[in-house]
């Protein structure tokens, strides 16, 4: 790409930087996105203020947004076959085991957890690369979990996916124009002669030179390929994007470019994100709401401030304390951290009761006997722990006994009636269970 004298005229028909009101700023944005595209460009007047303007603070939560996707008790069990002449199913990998959450319209929810926790499987279930074993996924009054592949086809327009690896997710034998335009032709949305203008518009939106539609993926760098992947996902104006580790394969300086682009796209097209990543800092920046997964289950879900500043589940606390912090440079040495021993247990034969108990320093008898429900304990906060509490303030006795009708050791109390309403709904109730008073309260 050379220094483009037509930058201004090109930018006119599109909506790049629609949030930048003034014409001058509009041109600036185009230049900036040009600069992100390739390194050959000579940038003359790129000053810090302009670039900083393009940078974004963390995304904000709209608590009143309706849900675009409601996932309820979603399950995915992969069969494990025996070896032998006759292959019998001898067990199941419980990759996802009964998770519930909502993705708000135009908002984003982050799924975090370590490898094997089921976060990527969840993404693949929602895009229906797998058919779930159980549960429902309500999207536009349809249950994605129940639809057949042919019934799914029209809905695939609305639910798109961005993949982790920009090197293997693009067909090397197709031009960028073909890759980005293919969904338009498959779904026959626009007449054939309108495909190219739309492709060029999309390339511009993601900060690539629209003239490059006839190039091949190998002519682009990793960051640019990820932009192509994003353009392809945007082609059909989806309502929900599932982004599975969208930046973890990229260089650090490129990661921020892509995250900013995704934020721009979210603001401009009102698309909702299910953002799956292992990098807790990036998820914190991109998602106002976060669900923490461990061994196929959501252990804690809540808004950003609650999860990152007041986590109540021991696993969330351990996970957060493990993240190395740049600010530690001012102090020197390592941060105080909660050490988790050993590895994550096998999802084929997960521990009874609470799945985290084998590595949890607070685990007691009840944790092995009774699975803790994902209990709403704040306005926008749920945690699945018998001893839920802030770090250093975990209660000595289980908080869930009344609700579950068990005693402190987890044995059923005769005659007790468990009050497990509201325990598994995907969204949040107006009232919640207060940990201090052990009563249901509300705002």
């Amino acid at each position, binding site marked *: 790409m050379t220094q483009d004298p037509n930058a201004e005229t090109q930018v006119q028909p599109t909506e790049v930087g629609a949030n930048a009101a003034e014409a001058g700023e509009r041109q600036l944005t185009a230049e900036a996105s040009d600069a992100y595209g390739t390194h050959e460009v000579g*940038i003359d007047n*790129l000053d810090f203020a302009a670039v900083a303007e393009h*940078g974004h603070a963390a995304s904000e939560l709209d608590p009143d947004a309706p849900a675009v996707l409601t996932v309820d008790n979603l399950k995915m069990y992969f069969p494990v076959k025996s070896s032998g002449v006759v292959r019998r199913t001898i067990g199941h990998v419980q990759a996802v085991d009964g998770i519930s959450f909502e993705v708000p319209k135009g908002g984003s929810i982050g799924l975090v957890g370590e*490898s094997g926790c089921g976060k990527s499987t969840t993404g693949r279930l929602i895009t229906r690369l797998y058919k779930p074993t159980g549960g429902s996924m309500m999207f536009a009054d349809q249950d994605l979990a129940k639809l057949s592949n042919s019934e799914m086809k029209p809905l695939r327009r609305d639910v798109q996916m961005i993949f982790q690896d920009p090197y293997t997710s693009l067909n090397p034998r197709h031009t960028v124009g073909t890759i980005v335009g293919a969904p338009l032709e498959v779904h026959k949305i626009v007449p054939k002669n309108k495909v190219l203008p739309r492709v060029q518009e999309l390339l511009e939106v993601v900060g690539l030179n629209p003239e490059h539609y006839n190039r091949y993926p190998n002519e682009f760098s990793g960051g640019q390929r990820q932009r192509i992947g994003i353009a392809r996902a945007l082609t059909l104006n989806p309502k929900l994007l599932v982004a599975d580790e969208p930046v973890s394969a990229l260089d650090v*300086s490129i990661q921020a*470019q892509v995250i900013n682009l995704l934020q721009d796209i979210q603001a401009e097209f009102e698309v909702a994100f299910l953002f799956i990543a292992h990098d*807790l800092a990036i998820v914190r920046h991109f998602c106002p709401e976060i669900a923490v997964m461990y061994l196929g289950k959501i252990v804690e879900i809540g808004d950003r401030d609650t999860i990152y500043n007041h986590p109540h589940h021991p696993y969330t606390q*351990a996970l957060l304390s493990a993240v190395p912090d740049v600010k530690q440079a001012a102090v020197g040495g*390592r941060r105080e951290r909660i050490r988790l021993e050993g590895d994550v247990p096998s999802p084929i034969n997960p521990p009874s009761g609470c799945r985290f108990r084998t590595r949890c320093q607070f685990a007691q008898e009840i944790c092995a006997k009774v699975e803790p429900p994902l209990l709403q304990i704040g306005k926008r906060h749920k945690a699945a722990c018998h001893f839920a509490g802030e770090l250093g303030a975990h209660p000595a006795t289980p908080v869930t006994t009344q609700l579950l009708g068990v005693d402190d050791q987890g044995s059923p109390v005769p005659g007790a009636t468990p009050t497990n309403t509201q325990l598994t709904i995907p969204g949040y109730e107006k009232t919640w269970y207060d940990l201090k008073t052990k009563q249901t309260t509300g705002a």
Partner: protein
Amino acid sequence: MTSIPMTQSSAAETSEVEGPFLQVEDLKVTFPTEDGPITAVSGLSYSVEKGKTLGIVGESGSGKSVSSMAVMGLHDAKSARISGSIRVGGTEVVGLGESRMRALRGNSMAMIFQDALAALHPFYKIGAQLEEAYLVHHSSASKRDARRKAIEMLDRVGIPQPDRRVDDFPHQFSGGMRQRAMIAMGLINDPSLLIADEPTTALDVTVQAQILDLLQDLQREFNSAVIIITHDLGVIAEMADDVLVMYAGRCVEYGSTKEILVAPEMPYTWGLLSSVPDVTASTDARLIPIPGNPPSLLRPPTGCPFHPRCVHSDKVPGDLCRTTLPELLPATSGPAHLKRCHLADPLKVYRTEVLPEIAPDLVEETR
């Protein structure tokens, strides 16, 4: 194992008198290609003392791995031209004969790699690979000694039931355990210098924390000099005493970790700090990317290699950034902090312009 740290620490005292264990001066690594020579590392100088950790930061192609592999003598003599000086424990290794180099490699210096699954041989048992590393530098030791040593090292790096796991193949280990085994193999001959190339990049955060803890414990025990190569500034902040920031094969900033991460004076370092979100940062902080892509090493930019991506070059008079490579000069705080930038008062630019955008909560503290 109990007696070894004692001898190690006494050895360390003598070498401290002699100076740093590893001293790199004006290192240049060039790879001839059909399109012309690629200069992957140029004019690089640094030193690491025993018991200290140097962090090397940079993006892909910055030369951080290439320079460390030059220290280990891992480049193919036919495809790499190396000049300058690398002294390991007083021995000059640039131009050193292969047999003498081999005696150092894996013995007084060792390297552990990012992807332990690929870096361990898939066809040999973990134990056999550790034993091999021991036996090659202990010709008088028996196979039984080597096996005992392998089990002892696996135990030391926290692998449960080491006497059984020693007979496992790498693919039977989990990711974290493989990295532990890799570390055990690196440390089996008590090296004085350990180079860890992205040791935790492929691992989950809790496993990463375990491995970093382990590396720190072992360093304390063996009093070795450690180089950690990473792109994660958080890892640098918690592990390194000194930091070397590399860009396009050159050192662009070098100093103590606190200096570099609290009072950086090079726009590329600012860019790294501003393009990575932090788990504890204020949510008002902006994520400001570095524009463009890392440069081509075949045709590096003229002048300052960072100038095509630099958003502060407008503050430097004239064409200086474009035409002249800035020297690596002492920063505001003194000669212990070096930076390569033409800006007249970079610290002021950082504190008044950059910091309010990327860490508004820190502005007050640093004043």
